[in-house]
């Protein structure tokens, strides 16, 4: 065997030692340093192994620190990477980038950020996927038992449109300095569109979002003691909401209060099981018409701003039994 085969079916860059060294030169880490054990096989990922897989995915050297930070974040215990990679559910670690590195390496936070057309966006997520597959063993139908999977599993990485957001970006909300670069990983499904071309008020737009998020078929409807619903607002929607004086905290509170599903609509569906199985025990005695939230608390909602012109927002349903993790990206 002389060449490495592609894990995802698309062509790859062969990881020559020279190319791998170019990535290693961009991080102040020993190549042999163990980043962590990657499930589901719990094999050790060294910095070099991460670099080899990142080269294969087409990752530019300046983006490699983002891959490493995202990998480390996803290996935190509360993220539940073991479950997220092996599950039949179509979740996968999605990556949100914040801070100066967005402009420094050219991530797309604007138009079509979730789509094709930008190397940084396309390859950071792909690098992670390669590491999960080649190191962790999350190979379809053996270590990764997704029933259908989804296109985001080729890799999903976007930047937050901080310049056009009326609020603090995600990493600042989580206690980091605006001048720090950070990455957040969320075990979630591919996003679903939220179209609202006519609402002129904050309540109007967030109600449309809430109604799009509270549906009985997501894991969050049942497995929501830890899960975080992730709302990605377009800059235009965010601007309309902020124009009414709403803070991000107000958006989350409104979502918690209104993104609800009546008990009668959950009974007998999804993962409803009053003995457990992920069904929140706190809901057990709820009357049929009680409206139940899709998260444990308002703080569990993640709200970011990404995208270009247009009155379209997005919703990522979560795996459910997972918590997102934010890590800084060393300069």
């Amino acid at each position, binding site marked *: *065997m*002389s*060449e*490495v085969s592609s*894990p995802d079916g698309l062509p790859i860059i*062969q*990881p*020559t*030692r020279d190319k*791998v060294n170019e990535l290693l030169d961009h991080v102040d880490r020993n190549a042999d340093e163990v980043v962590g054990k990657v*499930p*589901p*096989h*719990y*094999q*050790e*990922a*060294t910095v*070099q*192994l991460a670099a*080899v*897989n990142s080269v*294969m995915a087409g990752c530019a050297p300046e983006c490699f620190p983002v891959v490493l930070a995202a990998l480390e974040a996803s290996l935190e215990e509360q993220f*539940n990477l*073991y*479950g*997220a990679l*092996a*599950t*039949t*559910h179509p979740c996968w670690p999605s990556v949100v980038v914040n801070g100066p590195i967005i402009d420094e390496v050219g991530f797309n936070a604007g138009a079509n950020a979730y789509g094709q057309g930008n190397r940084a966006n396309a390859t950071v997520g792909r690098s992670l996927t*390669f590491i999960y597959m*080649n*190191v962790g*063993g999350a*190979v379809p139908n*053996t*270590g*990764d*038992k*997704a029933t259908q999977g989804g296109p985001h599993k080729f890799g999903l990485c976007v930047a937050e449109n901080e310049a056009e957001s009326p609020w603090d970006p995600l990493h600042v909300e989580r206690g980091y300095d605006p001048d720090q670069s950070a990455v957040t990983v969320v075990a979630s499904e591919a996003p679903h569109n939220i179209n609202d071309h006519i609402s002129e008020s904050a309540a109007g737009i967030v109600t449309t979002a809430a109604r799009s998020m509270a549906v009985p078929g997501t894991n969050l409807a049942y*497995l929501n*003691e830890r899960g975080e619903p992730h709302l990605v607002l377009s800059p235009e929607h965010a601007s309309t909401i902020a124009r009414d004086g709403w803070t991000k905290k107000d958006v989350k509170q409104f979502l918690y209060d209104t993104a609800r599903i009546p008990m009668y609509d959950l009974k007998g569906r999804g*993962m409803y*099981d009053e*003995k*457990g*199985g*992920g069904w929140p025990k706190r809901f057990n005695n709820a009357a049929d018409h009680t409206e139940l939230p899709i998260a444990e608390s308002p703080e569990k909602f993640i709200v970011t701003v990404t995208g270009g012109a247009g009155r379209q927002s997005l919703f990522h349903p979560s*795996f*459910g*039994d997972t918590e997102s993790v934010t890590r800084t990206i060393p300069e």
Partner: protein
Amino acid sequence: MSNQTIDERSEAVEILSPYPENTGSGDSVLANRLQSLDGASLALFSNNKLNADHFLNGVGEYMEAHFDTSVTDVIYKNVATSPASDELYETLGEYDAVLVAYGDCGSCSSWTVHDAIQLETAGVPTVVFCSTEFTALAQFEAEKQECPGLPIVEFEHPIADLTPDAVRSKRVTPDICEEAAETLTLPPERLRELYEGRYISDIDHREDVSFGACTI
């Protein structure tokens, strides 16, 4: 223009392996088994998947009817998609052996294997029940986490859309109950002979391919 031939240029390019080195010891954390089932107390441990308790009660009734054993009421963990608590492992460790059910999806099978490995490591013989679609996943995970030979007893998939009565009558068969009972008394070496590679023998082990630093 280089004077090197294509072959000479190719040999100068070193390609690195994207796969981890196999650093496992080859040993297994499997616990020693029981001398016999006579007088043994068996814990029925549900991962909280729907009907896992009915499945376990069916197995438990067979055990009590055919062996001189006692079984517990079903002990539940909080949620199938995460590990059990340390307190629960301690509780389960008070019994002679543990029967765990069941793996019938990706994340629940994975965390069920994890729970079983914690118990085996603590010296508690454990059996994992898993549906046919998920035994390969469970076995890969057990073998990569230093528990080759973990007894994974297979039953027909699917199970989630069966009634509790059908779970007992169609999935809890004498064969799987006898197999589970046998795994609790066989020595670990014999379990490795029986279960190592059992469900994954026809699957390509990508990371085991001899690769290293190759040239093109």
